[in-house]
């Protein structure tokens, strides 16, 4: 019975996707919206990377929502797993054997590179692939390696929470500043556009990117650490 239901569900999915696959044909021309973005984003926002320009300025409100969802996830994980943390931490740090010599030494070599790469991805979001969200995830995976390789290390949750909240507040206040001195909420023309293609250009995009990176990195690190203890 269970198996029949499973097969039925798979067949229904197959029927759904069959229509999609049959109707698919490769696009020969760009849609008007894509054309607009590709030609106007570099000129209007001063950002060579169109994706980040769209994410942070045109779809800035969506990005804010995304970060808010992540914040709620971190808060929910904290509520579910955080209460027993204090007494568990003492027992978990002393039990069992630590990671091998190889893992520890490898982590010591690779960790600075991962953090550096995360910072690079965050700060060059408007120039090359990446941006605040991706860079924050890279930084958090560095924290993950740190936790795996050195189980005795402790994250300062209070400090991370304060940093993360500050970044969020600053992000929203830049958005509100956009209403006052630029064209609307989260408009990146708060700061001058600068020279096209340099690190400090494209208005407020690098600043917002950095804030997003700090916020996402801190949130994901706290989530992982809550699961550890």
């Amino acid at each position, binding site marked *: 019975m269970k198996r029949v239901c499973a097969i039925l569900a798979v067949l229904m999915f197959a029927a759904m996707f069959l229509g999609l696959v049959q109707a698919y044909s490769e696009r020969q021309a760009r849609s008007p919206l894509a054309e607009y973005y590709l030609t106007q984003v570099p000129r209007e926002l001063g950002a060579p990377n169109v994706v980040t320009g769209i994410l942070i300025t045109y779809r800035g409100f969506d990005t804010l929502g995304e970060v808010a969802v992540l914040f709620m996830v971190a808060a929910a994980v904290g509520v579910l797993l955080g209460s027993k943390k204090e007494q568990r931490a003492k027992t978990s740090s002393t039990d069992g054997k630590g990671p091998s010599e190889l893992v520890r030494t490898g982590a010591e070599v690779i960790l600075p590179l991962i953090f550096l790469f995360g910072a690079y991805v965050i700060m060059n979001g408007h120039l090359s692939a990446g941006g605040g969200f991706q860079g924050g*995830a890279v930084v958090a995976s560095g924290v993950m390696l740190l936790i795996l390789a050195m189980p005795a290390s402790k994250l300062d949750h209070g400090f991370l929470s304060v940093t993360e909240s500050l970044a969020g507040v600053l992000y929203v206040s830049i958005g509100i500043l956009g209403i006052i001195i630029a064209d609307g909420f989260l408009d990146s023309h708060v700061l001058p556009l600068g020279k096209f293609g340099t690190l400090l250009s494209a208005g407020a995009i690098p600043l917002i990117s950095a804030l997003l990176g700090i916020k996402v990195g801190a949130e994901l690190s706290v989530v*992982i650490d809550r699961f550890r203890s």
Partner: protein
Amino acid sequence: MLELLVILVCIGILVSGVLAVWLSNLLAAMISAGLSSLFAAVSYVLLAAPDVAMAEAAIGSGLATLIFLYTMRKTDGGREP
């Protein structure tokens, strides 16, 4: 050439996804799920979406797998009591 590569990567996603469901060893299934995520990230790079690939590789195959690992360690790892 690119098309062949994309098809190979898609087969990789499918195989590792099916393995993640079929394997009874939870640790192996977890690694398999992470692997399918990694293959998805590679396919994003091949399809010229490096921004998405970065997030997928870091979150999908890194952080999510680790969270599964810790959850397995905290519970009894799926063994019958």
